[in-house]
């Protein structure tokens, strides 16, 4: 287990370092001049002269070669200093501290919606004997799963804020008012629902449904029933718990998708989190903010994947003992193509579980 941990942690670190270098290089390749953006913002949108742009670029140190700038950035970043925003001059660490908690809250609530909702809906679909009900749920989930996150978000926005006018359309509060739970909760509902519905809710519910559904006729369930156990006990202990394994394995990877989804969701609902800040920084060519925020998101995704892998290792002893990466569990999954394939087929009750990384490509 220790060796497995060390190996996974080392890989994760390498990924983060590679990500930072790639991100820095991409920013450099991107068209545009941050200095021009700054000057243009100051003059109310009027184009700055080439001489002024060149002077400011020198001042910002943008005329140094890329490796020099990257080295300087890494040296500072290691000490926790991500520089200052080109536009506002505020320390980037301050911007991260201000935005990260809101993204954490949004994604956490969305995750809770996803997990609770997916279990409830998935169970309902798996347990119902009415074909029409099952089909209705499946169709709804299919539609939800196929709809891009931003479309779900816009639909929710249109229905609840623009049309019914029962929920606020964005932000944390009415500006200037204290942020209390009573103020925050109504503001949180739409973005959290959008993020949850738009990202993996459908997949999760289907994973629960198939995970549980395939167990329904399993011998151990029949055996439990035959022993005269209460229906509730059978459902919770013999159907739900083992049936949730594929779903749980998928969650770690889902965090990455959730964070990716947070960019669009935060933009649409003016949620002042990391995602919105990243997009605003990209629009303004604010490289220090952009580089740091992309790195932060990268670290979180890598950490979530690592935790997901650990969870699978914990759930499935075969992974732990062999020390192999859980992406390719020993013995493979009967009936599923290598690498996961369609999530439903990965969820065979008897075999170990693919972490479902390939399924992520569906979103």
């Amino acid at each position, binding site marked *: 287990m220790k060796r497995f941990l060390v190996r996974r942690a080392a890989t994760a670190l390498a990924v983060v370092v590679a990500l930072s270098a790639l991100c820095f290089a991409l920013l450099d390749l991107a068209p545009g001049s941050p200095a021009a953006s700054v000057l243009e913002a*100051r003059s109310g949108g009027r184009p700055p002269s080439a001489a002024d742009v060149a002077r400011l670029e020198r001042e910002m140190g943008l005329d140094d070669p890329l490796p020099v700038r990257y080295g300087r950035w890494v040296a500072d970043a290691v000490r926790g200093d991500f520089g200052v925003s080109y536009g506002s001059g505020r320390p980037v660490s301050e911007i991260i501290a201000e935005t990260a908690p809101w993204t954490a809250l949004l994604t956490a609530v969305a995750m809770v919606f996803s997990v609770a909702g997916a279990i409830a809906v998935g169970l309902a679909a798996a347990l119902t004997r009415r074909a029409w009900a099952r089909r209705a749920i499946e169709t709804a989930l299919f539609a939800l799963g196929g709809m891009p996150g931003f479309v779900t978000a816009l639909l929710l926005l249109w229905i609840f804020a623009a049309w019914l006018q029962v929920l606020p359309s964005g932000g944390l509060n009415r500006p200037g*008012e204290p942020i209390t739970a009573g*103020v925050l909760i*109504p503001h949180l509902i739409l973005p959290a629902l959008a993020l949850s519905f738009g990202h993996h809710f459908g997949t999760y519910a289907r994973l629960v449904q198939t995970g549980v559904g395939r167990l329904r006729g399993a011998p151990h369930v029949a055996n439990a029933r035959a022993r005269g156990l209460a229906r509730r006990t059978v459902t919770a202990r013999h159907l739900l718990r083992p049936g949730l394994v594929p779903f749980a394995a998928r969650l770690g990877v889902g965090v990455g998708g959730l964070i990716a989804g947070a960019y669009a969701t935060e933009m649409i609902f003016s949620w002042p989190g990391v995602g919105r*800040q990243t997009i605003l920084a990209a629009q303004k060519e604010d490289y220090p903010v952009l580089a740091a925020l992309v790195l932060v998101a990268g670290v979180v995704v890598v950490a979530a994947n690592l935790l997901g892998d650990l969870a699978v290792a914990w759930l499935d002893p075969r992974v732990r003992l062999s020390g192999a990466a859980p992406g390719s569990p020993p013995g493979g999954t009967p009936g599923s193509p290598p690498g996961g394939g369609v999530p439903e087929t990965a969820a065979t009750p008897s075999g170990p579980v693919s972490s479902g990384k390939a399924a992520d490509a569906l979103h």
Partner: protein
Amino acid sequence: MRKSALVIGTVAAATGLLATGCGSGGDAGSGKSGGTFTYAIGDEPETLNPALQDEHTDPVTELVFCGLTRHDAANKVVPGLAESWQVGKGGTEYTFKLRSGLTWHDGKPITSKDVKFTVDAVKQAAADAPLSRNFAAVKAVETPDQSTVRFVLSKPFAPLLDAVSMGLLPEHALAGKKLTDAGFGQSPVGSGPFKLTTFKPGQYAELESFGGYYEGKPKLPKIVIKYVPDDTARLIQLKNGEVDGAHVQPQQVAKVKDDGKVRLETYPTADYRALMFNFKRPVFADKAIRQAMNYAVDRDAIVKSVLAGQGSPATGPLDQSPYKSDAAPFTFDPAKVEELMKGAGYAKNGQGLWEKGGKTVRFELSTFAEDSARVAILNVAATQLKQQGFDIVPNPRPKDWVRKHWGDLEAFVVGWGTPYDADSSVFGPFHSSQALDKGGSNYGTYNNPQVDKALEAGRDTMDEGERKAAYADFQKALAEDPPFVWIAYLDTNNAVPKNLTGPAKRTLGHHGYGFFWNAEKWAWS
């Protein structure tokens, strides 16, 4: 199965509870008498330092800061922090007398030293401060006593009174720091009618009325400016009661008009759109062609279609200025186009295009591809010009490309104009000393000695009559040898609650800036 129905029921009930139980739509405190006025705007400044912005462009900065002078409803310069001034030595010496008992928002007194500090800091910051151009002629700022400040100029500069409407900076908060200091830019200390209490970049700025303001405490206790970049989102928030007022796009006017809660304030602006030509291209050498194109566009049609009627036809850069003269008679007149083009030796070819020596009047017309309003103007204007025989190739280009290739453009839909002193938005784009190669904003490299002479006269003379004559000469010279095809001035729309009194019409600035110009007089009825 009963159980499954129960589960479904529970989920549905929970969702319903969430949606209705907590959904108040956020009306708390909106538009109530004595309450906060919350207003949504699209543009957010990077810094609230007035010296780092061009010409009164941000409402928050405008509310927090106050200059020696300010502008009245007619955009004329009137006393601000200075109660009076004298101009001496042929316009090279300005002596301002500060009002008594002035204080900064932090309670410290405002003295002549702050004025000197402000001007020195702006001059030193050079290109970091767009407005440093206005203080180039200032040789020294003297402070004979606490409330007297004297500007000594190297040569007369008529727009100086307008220039000192820029917000005054407090020396005690900025001494020893760079003008671009982020701390000051995020939590500034000013002397305007409203005091900044919170600034959350990307979200909102909260302002509180300032009791020490020289005209007395404003009646509105609080103003919140909320940054909502998306036009549709602003409209939704206005309708949903999340904000009390908002900047509204021309296409949204109809939707706001039916709303019972708000009133629409529609003001003209001095912000115009025009087709600029690159004079390094031989195709534009003959002024008859440029005159003809000025007669070939149907400005009324553009205002009606592209701007949804929210604007007015433009024939020159000073149409909204007190210095406007009737020099440019440009209207849509196909007969005049024909007369001018034939006079210049052109004849229509088989495709209906003007041709001379086997060459048509062919050029690419571009603009920022990201600016949908400009692209729409470009497309309609290009079609109209083509119908009149000009061989236009419409081609919007990304902002980023344009920034690096101003010199390579052939023609471009530009936006200029100021409601304040005429000089600041005509000297840059039209004086030959401001050509692109010299680092100026004359992007088309227009060079007309008559225009140069008139522009210099406009800035050098202190006599109002002479200034008027100079700008009349300028407009006449422009009409004869047009550097642009002027299209339209844009109107700007703001929705405010019906029970808010005070907003008053004034010709506003670039992008409709300046709506809050008299906010100290606003009140709930």
